């Protein structure tokens, strides 16, 4: 059941209505049932994977709570179990394929390829959440020891498929569902939900059609330099609005039942430098990687700069691989790793405390934007070969001309302008204020301005309704 489908919206409306009319003691079970049904709506068999993962995590976390070396062993066993499940489903075929290629290259008989397993939706996301549950348990941050809480922490439908990747301390305390109803839950929830619907249907889907066409393998080789830059920008727009749309809808749906999920984006294309970009793009993944991988790996190595840079590139390569079992994703991650390491080296060379002149700040901002856009090419390209052809045309072998309809370039330009103005729009929207304030202003807001705005957003969603597209991050 897609977030931007009519069936989901109708079910959500009814579910929220029922939720607030249920006694508090039933709400936990009710939300758990809804979450299970939501996940099963794709494929009932998919449920087996998170259930097994939860059993492993529950067993492991019980042992961890007992402490001692047995606890430590249980932690590693739990993490190994989760990584093994993720590995088999997500990387099994990729590894077999690459081993087979290697074997052929060495002149040996190709290996028989493993049969391809269906990848359970959202496995990368809930695997990371399961690992964070174990690590947080080890650090004594998980207060609840109940399987019910663990299962709902993993299965909670708004974040189940594509994040935000939540921490135990962010979600588990809220799973009591004991907040009294406030109308702002519905209003702020609808704000985010409808904004997401429009971002997905109006922006991501419409520009996505052009991107699909431009990245067709045999046609891409014929694109001009301008076409390839435009396609990279267009994909940057598509993936941002697609993922931000999902996140907005997830946050909105959770908000409607009184649950606050963490934010995932903060105007990423306004980043001042590569480090800043990763504090604005997929923020919950960045902090997960930072806290659970990068910091532990590099503890006490601040003075060993080279090792720090190599580790940064390596970790980002893994981030790339987390997205999918393909070399394009790895290259994307490595490119970002190089950006981050280069910027760190540049900062060290200049001295971090030295203020940057305006022109330099502008140049770094522009280079960051171009670098981020260029990195989308291997992320989207269907093969490394295609990515290299396109990158070569963008940076080395120039050719000019516009191969696609003017509408494509125009659309890309309009959405770029939109992105440029997003912080301003956001400030203007904040002026609209809360709908539950008393008096005439509150009534105007709650009964005229917001319903009118919601109706316009719903109309746009319906007009640009397209059942044939899915969210990009559903693949990961």
């Amino acid at each position, binding site marked *: 059941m897609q977030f931007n489908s009519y*069936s*989901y919206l109708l079910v959500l409306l009814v579910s929220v209505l029922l939720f607030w009319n249920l006694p508090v003691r039933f709400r936990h079970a009710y939300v758990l049932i809804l979450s299970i049904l939501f996940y099963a*709506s*794709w494929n009932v068999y998919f449920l087996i994977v998170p259930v097994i993962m939860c059993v492993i995590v529950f067993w492991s976390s019980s042992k961890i709570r007992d402490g001692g070396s047995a606890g430590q062993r249980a932690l590693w066993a739990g993490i190994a179990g989760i990584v093994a499940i993720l590995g088999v489903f997500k990387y099994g075929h990729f590894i077999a394929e690459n081993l087979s290629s290697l074997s052929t290259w060495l002149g040996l008989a190709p290996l028989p390829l493993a049969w391809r397993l269906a990848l359970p939706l959202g496995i990368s996301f809930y695997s990371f959440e399961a690992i964070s549950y174990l690590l947080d348990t080890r650090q004594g941050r998980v207060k609840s020891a109940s399987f019910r809480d663990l299962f709902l922490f993993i299965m909670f439908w708004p974040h189940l498929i594509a994040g935000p990747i939540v921490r135990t301390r962010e979600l588990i305390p809220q799973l009591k569902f004991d907040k009294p109803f406030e109308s702002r839950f519905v209003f702020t929830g609808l704000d985010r939900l409808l904004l997401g619907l429009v971002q997905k249907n109006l922006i991501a889907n419409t520009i996505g059609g052009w991107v699909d066409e*431009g990245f067709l393998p*045999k*046609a891409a080789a014929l694109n001009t330099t301008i076409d390839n830059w435009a396609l990279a920008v267009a994909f940057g727009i598509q993936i941002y609005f697609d993922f931000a749309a999902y996140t907005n809808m997830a946050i909105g749906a959770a908000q409607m039942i009184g649950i606050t999920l963490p934010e995932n984006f903060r105007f990423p294309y306004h980043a001042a430098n590569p480090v800043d970009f990763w504090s604005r793009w997929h923020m919950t993944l960045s902090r997960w990687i930072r806290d659970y991988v990068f910091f532990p790996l590099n503890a006490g190595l601040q003075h060993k700069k080279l090792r720090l840079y190599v580790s940064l590139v390596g970790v980002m390569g893994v981030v790339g691989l987390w997205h999918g079992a393909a070399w394009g994703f790895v290259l994307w991650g490595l490119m970002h790793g190089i950006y981050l390491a280069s910027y760190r080296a540049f900062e060290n060379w200049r001295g971090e405390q030295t203020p940057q002149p305006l022109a330099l700040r502008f140049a770094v901002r522009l280079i960051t934007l171009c670098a981020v856009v260029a990195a989308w090419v291997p992320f989207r390209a269907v093969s490394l070969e295609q990515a290299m052809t396109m990158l070569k045309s963008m940076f080395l072998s120039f050719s000019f001309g516009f191969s696609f309809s003017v509408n494509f370039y*125009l659309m890309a330009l309009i959405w770029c302008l939109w992105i440029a103005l997003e912080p301003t729009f956001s400030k203007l929207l904040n002026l609209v204020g809360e709908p539950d304030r008393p008096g005439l202003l509150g009534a105007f807001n709650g009964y005229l301005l917001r*319903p009118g705005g919601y109706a316009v957003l719903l109309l746009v969603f319906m007009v640009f309704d397209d*059942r044939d597209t899915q969210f990009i991050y559903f693949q990961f």
Partner: protein
Amino acid sequence: MKNPKLQALLAVALTFAALWCLLAWDPFRHLRDVFVDPAQEEAKISLLFTDPNTQEVSDGQHPLESLRKLESNWCNVTKEARYILTGNSQTFSVLLAPSEAVATEEADRTYPDLLLDRLTAAGAKVHGYRLSAPNISYMEVLWYLNYLLVHPCLIPGEFVIQLNFETFRKTGVREGMFELLEDPDFASAIKQEARSNAPYANTLQQAIDQYASRIAKEKGTQTSSISKTGITEARGFGSAFETTTRIALDHLSWLRSRGQLKAELLDFLYLARVNLLGITPTTKRSLGGGPLTTNLSSLERIGELCRRNGIRLVFFNAPQNPNAPLYRTTADREQYQQIISGLARQFAQGYFDFENSIPGPLWGVWIDGPDPIHFGRAAHRRLADLMFEQGMISGEK
């Protein structure tokens, strides 16, 4: 209001009421009308001659029914000469020139209709069929040809293709044409095409995948399509539930209008582009990149298929408005001429150049001035006469 639950419920109810009002009021039509010149609207003829026996009447949106009807007709006349003419909206639109009177009560005929009339009047025993669609791409023509070839009754003696500068910039296969994949023989043939190494192959494969995905969603079944990340799409009861929901919602008349709303919004955006940004239908352009290569490879494949199946392939270069040439530079024009003459030499049994056949005053006026694609009544007659006189249709069986 003190009760927060009632407050929220009222706001949701008001939202649906406002949505209902918006759908009923049709805001995009009003927006579009800001830019529409009523005189230009009148010049665009809406009462056109329609005959499902000689035309694909859905303009590419639902061609299967049209082609099945054609098959039942043509199976009765297999021994007589038959031709199919394909092209873009120029072949089925009339946009009156400023000197022409406003619409008459009689339905207007476009040049494919008039050509067939002339042939019939001259006693030729020939059956003609117009298989056109707006903004058609040559990948779509290849799509159609593959369908014709797997139905022996539909294989024409002559296949006439309109060559047009603008068409070389179009790409893809429109969703409406996907339904031809319901035919197993065609599906098998087009999958074979999609497996080739030709530049058009990816486009065909994309259409096949989109259709498979759509069908899987409608039926709630599992597909075997695999994405870049290795995910095998799986569809559970959610998809079937969505299909049921959509069917139920389509019973509400006010919701059914959303397709029309989209068309009006796109019209408005197009007019806004022309009027506010000055990017007009007559803005000059060049050919190049993927669109040119995929179209070219499609035409080459069409040429091979026609040769292999004994079909007489005829190309005609569509008229261009002398007051609104689309070529950005002289080099662009020369490149286009080289491409089409090369294609004609290599594959066509007949080639007719009508590029300069329609004088400027006979062309329609659209939005910002002379229309580069569409012309008026007299021009349609003139072009049909020229095609007839030059013997574009040989009447071969």
